[in-house]
């Protein structure tokens, strides 16, 4: 008999085997004729300019740090979720326990949301948007000329 974690192990083994069989089978069947064009990075159909290992701005790190903090917060939700809906505790306290646990968690998340709201209000999450330049170039060809060509062809 397989235990519960045995099932997870079976799932992991199945996933690995599936990927290995699919990719390995494709590797055996496909012709292998690489050239420079095929091996170059696809970049919206343009010729790639340099490679991806450029220095990114330190501001990306803020997003990652915010993610880490909310991730750690999520860890605290696990033990809360196991006791929040506990039937024995709710019955013993005449239903007060459920409201108590819920409000505790709302305070917990609320303080963290305050931090996110602070970053948001201060505008640290905004990106500097490029200013779109409006050119005041007036074409000498009237729009009806294009219209005529479209009609013709």
């Amino acid at each position, binding site marked *: 008999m397989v235990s519960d974690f045995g099932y997870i192990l079976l799932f992991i083994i199945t996933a690995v085997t599936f990927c290995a069989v699919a990719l390995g089978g494709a590797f055996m069947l496909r012709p292998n004729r690489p050239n420079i064009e095929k091996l170059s990075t696809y970049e919206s159909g343009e010729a790639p300019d340099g490679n991806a*290992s450029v*220095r990114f701005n330190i501001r*990306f*790190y803020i997003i990652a740090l915010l993610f880490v*903090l909310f991730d750690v917060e999520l*860890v605290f939700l696990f033990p809360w979720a196991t006791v929040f809906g506990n039937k024995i505790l709710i019955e013993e306290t005449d239903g007060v326990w459920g409201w108590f646990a819920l409000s505790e968690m709302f305070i917990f998340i609320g303080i*963290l949301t305050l931090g996110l709201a602070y970053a948001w209000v201060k505008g*640290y999450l905004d990106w*500097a948007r490029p200013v779109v330049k409006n050119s005041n170039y007036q074409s000498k060809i009237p729009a009806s000329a294009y219209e005529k060509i479209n009609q013709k062809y």
Partner: protein
Amino acid sequence: MQFWYFLTALTLLSALMVVLSKNPIHSVLYLVFTFFCISGHYVLLNAQFLMAVNIIVYAGAIMVLFLFVIMMLDLRRNMPDSKSNLTKLAGAILGGTLLVILVAVMRKTQFPQFSQMGGKFDTQTGMVENLGQVLFRDYLLPFELVSILFFVAMVGAVMLGKREAGERNF
């Protein structure tokens, strides 16, 4: 027991690959795999909450930070070329000393035997439910204070990394 040997071999192998692989991105991916193997060890030790934390926080979040650090180092310019022999010697001495200290500590430590605990060993200590019970019974105020700590960390990170006026995104 057989599975434990297999998992340990896998962990050690992937941990070695972290150090040995030349590409830093590959190192990070091997480190993720190492963390998953360690999570398997936690499952074998009946510490399921630690397993979840290890996967969510370490394999998820800390690895993202590692990747960001790699993105911020300019790898084209700071490619770790072959180190001098002096650097290698210093690294070997440092690592070897740490290994000796760890081995000495492990040999000196007296692990409590089951008989010394008076038969009060609880196999269910590491379960999430027990942690929730303890957290919401004995440690309710620290639990709420943790959120203040997170708040401070968040504001501090945001303050340190804020964009100066006129700075470019890239």
